[in-house]
Every structure is written in structure tokens, then in C-alpha cells.
């Protein structure tokens, strides 16, 4: 396509209208513009978007990239064991609290269920509450029979909280130090 010099063509008309670039298309040629503006806007077929997007590489969302970055940092810094320890201890806490609390307060929980029953809990719940009370009592008996018992579970729960806090502190310190290096 060879560029054409404006001076060769349409000069008089351009001069008459001063600078055409400042006119709107409708101002330049109203009749022709009205006809051209009315032509159909064609659209591709349905699912065009999906076909395109299936061929487009999209970066992962930011939160996934952050998680991946954090994982790579853990491996790079050799602190992955710290993280695994924190996760393991952290996941033990709810279990220990549940078992320790359940066995310690089994009698009170059972009494509470009985109280609710006496206050008019629908009959549908009667059998269930009775079963729960019986199950808790059995659990208390079995836990008491274990060598360590419920006291040991409570000790694990209490001890794991500071361990978890120390792990989290160490982890965050590691990450901050690595980011500063970056």
C-alpha cells in the first residue's frame, strides 16, 4: 500500500472545512454517515469467547501465585520442616481439645442434655440426646482407662499452643527476610 500525499487529492475540500480531524464523522458527510452508521454490526457465532479463551494462556490468580511463592520460599530456605511441624501441631490441637474437654465435662454435658429434655425438647430428640449422653459416659470411662488419660490430652493441647505460636513466628520471620532479599 503506497502512501498518498494529501496535497494531491481533496485539497480544496479540506481547506474549505479547515481541519477535518476536528469534525465528527456525522459533521463531515451527514447523509453518507447516516447510511454507513446504519449498517449491520456483525457478530461471531456463539461460544466464540470460549473458543478463544481455550487457546489463551492465563496467569494463575494472585492468591495461587502467592501460595506457590510461599511454598517455593519454604523449600528454598529449608524451613519446610518448620511449616510441616506447625501444621501437624496445629491440627492436633482441636482433636486434643475435643477429646480432653469432652471427657472432662461429660457429666455436665449429659446433665445439660437431660435438662433440655426435661424442659420439653421434642420427642424426636429424646432418643438422640439419650444416646449422646450414654456415648459420652462410655468415652469418659474408656479415656480414664488409658495409661495417659484425659489429663495427658489436656497437657498436649496446652503445650501445643505456644509451640504453634513459635512456629508461626519463625515462619513469618523467614518469609519477611526472604522478601527483603528479593
Amino acid at each position, binding site marked *: *500500500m503506497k*502512501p*498518498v*500525499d*494529501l*496535497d*494531491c*487529492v*481533496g485539497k480544496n*475540500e*479540506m481547506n474549505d472545512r479547515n481541519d*477535518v*480531524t476536528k469534525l*465528527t*464523522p456525522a459533521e*463531515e*458527510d451527514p*447523509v*453518507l*454517515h447516516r*447510511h*454507513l*452508521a*446504519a*449498517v*449491520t*454490526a*456483525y*457478530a*461471531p*457465532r456463539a461460544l*466464540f*469467547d470460549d*473458543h*478463544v*479463551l481455550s*487457546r*489463551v*494462556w*492465563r*496467569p*494463575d*490468580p*494472585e492468591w*495461587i*501465585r502467592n501460595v506457590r511463592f510461599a511454598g517455593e520460599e519454604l523449600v528454598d530456605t529449608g524451613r519446610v520442616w518448620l511449616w510441616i511441624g506447625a501444621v501437624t501441631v496445629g491440627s492436633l490441637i482441636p482433636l486434643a481439645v475435643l477429646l480432653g474437654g469432652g471427657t472432662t465435662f461429660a457429666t455436665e454435658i449429659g446433665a445439660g442434655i437431660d435438662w433440655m429434655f426435661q424442659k420439653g425438647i421434642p420427642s424426636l430428640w429424646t432418643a438422640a440426646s439419650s444416646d449422646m449422653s450414654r456415648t459420652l459416659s462410655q468415652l469418659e470411662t474408656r479415656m480414664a482407662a488409658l495409661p495417659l488419660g484425659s489429663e495427658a490430652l489436656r497437657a498436649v493441647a496446652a503445650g501445643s499452643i505456644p509451640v504453634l505460636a513459635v512456629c508461626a513466628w519463625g515462619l513469618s520471620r523467614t518469609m519477611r527476610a526472604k522478601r527483603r532479599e528479593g
Partner: protein
Amino acid sequence: MNQALDLTAATDQQVVGWARDGVEVAYRELLRRYERPVFSLIYRMVRDRELAEDLTQETFVKVLNALDRYRPEFKFSSWIFKIANNAAIDQLRRKELDTLSLEGGPDAVTPDRVEATSLQVGDISESPLEELEARELGSAIELAIGRLRPEYRACIIMRHVDGRPYDEIAEILDLPLGTVKTYIHRARAELRETLGPLRE
């Protein structure tokens, strides 16, 4: 983050920024904004629906895969239309399709090809008479546009169908501003001549 995005009110640059962050709705918003004008331009240039769809798809794939290279100081629309126009021009050079028939492209030898290369004129009025007139007018305009040289065609479509300013058309087509003015002036003259009886 996605729920907080107000995509309809966002600028192209903002939407591109979100797309770079991997937000899928931002990709879909860019497609929603540009699929019709890009497809219309390419369709009017190559006059083959299937081919136009392929070229439009290639254009979007190329653009969306290269968002990291997009520079926000330039208009996104200029970038995508430049790629679309280049794809259409390359195709025209390959196929040497430079004349239009509403009954099918010059290379249409089978009924399927005739259908594929025929431009479809949409209904834009309600009464039968108005519809007839509109279809006739639409056909004549499409025919007249199709008879223009490809470079005139691209200019006149971008100026009068898409309403783009001269400087943006010049940027899209990589032409001097004066050349774009000339092309549009000549294209208008040819259209006036072709559409003479319908222009009253």
C-alpha cells in the same frame, strides 16, 4: 477480588491490568467489548464468515496472549485493530480477494461457498416497506463498501461505522495522517458515486 471489579465502567487499561493478574472475567470483558467491531471489520474486509471468524479468533488469541507486552500509554483499541487489520490485509494479499458480490465471493464455486461469502444484511426497520428499503439500502452500502480498495475500505469502516478519529486510524494502519484523510476523502467520493440514487 473479582466480585469487587466494576468492569463495565473500567477503562481498557484497567481491564487489561486485571487480565494480566489472571482474572478471567477481565478477559471476557475485553472480548465482549471488541469481538463485534473486530469481527465486523475483518468480515467486511475478507467477506467470508468462516474465514473472518478464524482471523478474529487468531487476532484475539494473539492479543490476549501478549497482554504482558501491551504498553498502557497507547490505546488498547488501536493495538487490537492494528493486529486485526494486518490479519485481514495479509489474508487479502494471499487470496487476492478484492471485489465483493452480495451473491458470494469471487472464488465461490459451490453453493456452500456462495453462502459463506455472501454478506448478510440485517433487518433494521419494522414495516415491510421500510424493511425492504432498509435491506435494499443496506445491500447497496455493503456492496459499495466491498467495491472499495481494501485500504479505503478499512479507513471508511473505521471512520464512519466505528466512529474512530483520524489520528487513531492513522496509528492503526501505520499511515501518515494526511494519507488517511485522502483515503477517506476518496472512499467517500466513490461511495457517493455508487450510492447516488439512494442518497436522497
